[in-house]
């Protein structure tokens, strides 16, 4: 999933302070799962903003809505009625959802309320960790299902850097060394010889380095 974090309340409040009526638009998919922008977070943010403005003697009308996915037109069109009533929308979606709404409703000011952080997993309750950089050419089969691009701070393909200590990364000691995990997995499964195989330099043109990417599925085009 895409993992994000809600922006600090103070930052969101500063963004909306010039408006008398806003819509806080949540997204019911990835950012809901990581507690950044689902229905609950929309309601909590709206309440916190109302209370905060009330203490300053101001009233701001806040509409609340959460759609299934802000990155799909099919879902965000459900927000058209509410959006038509406001000058600004605080989107609690990831960067893709924010831009989709901005593109669909150019008449309103779109204010991002979430910082999109990474593609990751729910490792355990309350902990999300990064696993994938979206390079466009998955090769985790060569590394025992552990990606040295998304999980190694130095994105090394040909073995550990030598800086790790006790299985932890020297860049961030809270993070497992990806190459320690790769070697441990290979040893445990009797595939150490596989790591001796030559891996050619990666073609980064499939990554974001090649500019914005597209996936075109003609079989789904109508």
């Amino acid at each position, binding site marked *: 999933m895409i993992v994000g974090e809600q922006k600090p*309340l*103070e930052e969101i409040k500063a963004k909306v302070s010039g408006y008398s009526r806003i819509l806080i638009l949540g997204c019911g998919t990835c950012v809901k799962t990581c507690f950044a922008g689902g229905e609950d977070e929309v*309601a*909590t943010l709206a*309440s*916190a903003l109302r*209370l*905060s403005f*009330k*203490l300053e003697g101001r009233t701001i009308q806040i509409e609340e809505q959460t759609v299934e996915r802000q990155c799909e037109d099919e879902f965000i069109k459900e927000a058209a009625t509410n959006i038509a009533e406001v000058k600004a929308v605080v989107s609690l979606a990831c960067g893709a959802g924010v831009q989709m709404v901005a593109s669909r409703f150019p008449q309103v000011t779109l204010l991002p309320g979430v910082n999109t952080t990474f593609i990751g997993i729910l490792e355990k309750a309350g902990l999300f960790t990064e696993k994938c950089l979206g390079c466009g050419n998955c090769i985790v089969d060569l590394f025992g299902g552990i990606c040295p691009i998304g999980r190694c701070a130095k994105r090394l393909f040909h073995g550990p850097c030598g800086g790790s200590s006790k299985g932890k990364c020297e860049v961030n000691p809270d993070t497992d060394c990806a190459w320690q995990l790769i070697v441990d997995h290979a040893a445990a499964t009797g595939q150490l010889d596989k790591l001796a195989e030559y891996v050619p330099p990666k073609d980064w043109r499939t990554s974001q380095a090649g500019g914005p990417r597209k996936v075109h599925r003609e079989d789904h085009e109508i």
Partner: protein
Amino acid sequence: MVMEKVHRMSNKGGAAHTRKPRITVFHCFTALEDTASLEGGDYEIQGIKMPCSSISREVFLLRAFEAGADAVVVLVCPVNSCRYVQGNIRTEKRVTRVKKILDEIGIGGHRLNMFNIVQGDEAAARRIIEQTVAELGEWGLSAAA
């Protein structure tokens, strides 16, 4: 007497308050059957009865302040005594988070507190309310109420 003190504190900022302090009590019905025994003359109690305290989502606690609470009390079962195993632990984490939000807003996280009470200990619940009313004497009424 407590009410007079609350009003004196609240009047520091300007407009006079003539109402009683309001306390919203979120409680699971295992910890406390209802809030009837907590009602008194010097304050208003709004009881929110739940099958488990963990149902008290962040927004419910905030909306209690929007609805006019000067203080919010959450009564939960003792640690390791929750019928749903972790309900009181989840509640504590939510209360901690909402206290931070209240601090950030300026209402003050001290107006929201969670207490563990043994099932049916109405005397303990009453002492908690009396303590909260006394503290409201120091804090004054909420400017957001």
